[in-house]
């Protein structure tokens, strides 16, 4: 780090950073965000398949970036290493990462869950369980107080992030708890969730215009939600025709009836001071509830709600861009908090209107 690190002159500190998995979708998003971040200087982006090629060849929005991919086997010393590789890679390389970097931010699932046994249940076990306690979950709206000074940060899952942001205010308000009835979470996601290396199902002819159940039951993000909200949810994920975006519709049945005023109070209370969260619920015009389009390309999250007549059910809508708030933006946000930089540094882009399927 070339700056002092203290909060005082945080705005002018500069940290070197590298991105492992730089040809990928979230790797590219990290590069985009870090390249525009006043406090980071990207010194390395790795790729095995595009070694030596310019970054702009993979990511046309980064054509002006003067950087070439290098091999993940030759990691340079940096202040912060971001890793955006498929599940299973980081858990095997985390020792290497800490040899070259002071802080590691991992976007995969490898350090998200608090217990090794959960990896046995939901994944294929864990190679480096000793790191799990050290890791902090990246989502600042959930875990801000534990991030400053953290040196291993685990980015949340995109669908889990959307769900947690939607339900947390109800948990905090006591409307929802471990003893609550069924919580159904019905998620709709864009094709970038599948990463850059999709198969036949993600080819344009097969993936266009779909409403396709891709994780009917048993999605791994359930584990994360349960771990961090203390709630078990009934979770189903559908692929729809957009590229960026994750939208979680949560159907909740409170034990006691709640009013719209109560809900406004809970959500405003939770998020009024959050720099990236907006409560959007009713109102006029075309955009009355949270939508992925409204936050596409940004680190914003939108949440909103509606009540069934009779107040029997609360429907909560939560929308994020899976590439930013759901992964790379969340990672940078967490790094900002960890390094005590201004929270919104590098994350100011507010989105576009109109915008198609961003």
């Amino acid at each position, binding site marked *: 780090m070339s700056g002092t690190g203290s909060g005082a002159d945080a705005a002018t500190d500069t940290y070197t950073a590298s991105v492992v998995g730089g040809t990928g979708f979230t790797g590219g998003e990290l590069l985009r965000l870090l390249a525009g971040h006043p406090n980071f200087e990207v010194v390395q982006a790795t790729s095995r398949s595009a070694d030596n090629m310019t970054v702009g060849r993979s990511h046309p929005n980064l054509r002006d970036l003067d950087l070439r991919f290098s091999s993940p086997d030759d990691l340079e010393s940096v202040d912060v290493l971001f890793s955006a590789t498929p599940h299973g890679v980081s858990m095997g390389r985390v020792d290497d990462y800490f040899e070259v970097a002071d802080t590691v931010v991992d976007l995969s699932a490898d350090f998200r869950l608090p217990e090794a046994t959960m990896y046995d249940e939901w994944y294929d076990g864990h190679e480096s369980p000793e790191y799990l306690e050290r890791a902090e979950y990246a989502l600042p709206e959930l875990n801000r107080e534990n991030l400053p000074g953290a040196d291993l940060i685990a980015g949340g899952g995109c669908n889990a992030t959307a769900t947690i942001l939607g339900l947390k205010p109800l948990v905090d308000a006591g409307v929802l708890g471990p003893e609550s009835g069924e919580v159904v979470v019905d998620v709709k996601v864009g094709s970038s969730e599948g990463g850059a290396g999709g198969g036949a199902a993600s080819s344009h002819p097969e993936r266009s215009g779909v409403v396709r159940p891709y994780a009917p039951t048993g999605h791994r993000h359930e584990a994360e939600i349960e771990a961090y909200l203390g709630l078990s949810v009934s979770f189903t994920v559908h692929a729809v025709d957009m590229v960026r975006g994750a939208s979680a519709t949560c159907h909740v049945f409170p034990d006691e009836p709640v009013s*719209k*005023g109560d809900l*406004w*109070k809970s959500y*405003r209370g939770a998020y009024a001071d959050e720099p990236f969260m907006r*409560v959007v*619920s*009713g*109102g*006029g015009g075309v955009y009355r509830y949270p939508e992925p389009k409204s936050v596409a390309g940004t680190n914003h999250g939108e949440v909103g709600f509606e009540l069934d007549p009779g107040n029997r059910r609360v429907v909560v809508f939560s929308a994020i861009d899976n590439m930013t708030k759901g992964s790379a933006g969340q990672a940078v946000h967490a790094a900002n908090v960890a390094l005590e930089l201004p929270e919104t540094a590098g994350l100011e882009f507010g989105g576009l209107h109109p915008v198609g399927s961003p």
Partner: protein
Amino acid sequence: MTTDTDPVLAEDPITGEEIELPADVEVGEIIDSPVTGTELEVISLDPVTLEEAPELEEDWGE
């Protein structure tokens, strides 16, 4: 920048929060809440009081 007059304050009928409205609001006018986005009708002035405007039911085909 110049504005003719300062914004007026009113209570949001849904959240109870204090909200700012343009100085020249008139009774009967529809205006959206800066907090909730809800369309509100100006019921009286001095002080400005607001209530939820009746929503136009949109019937998106079925």
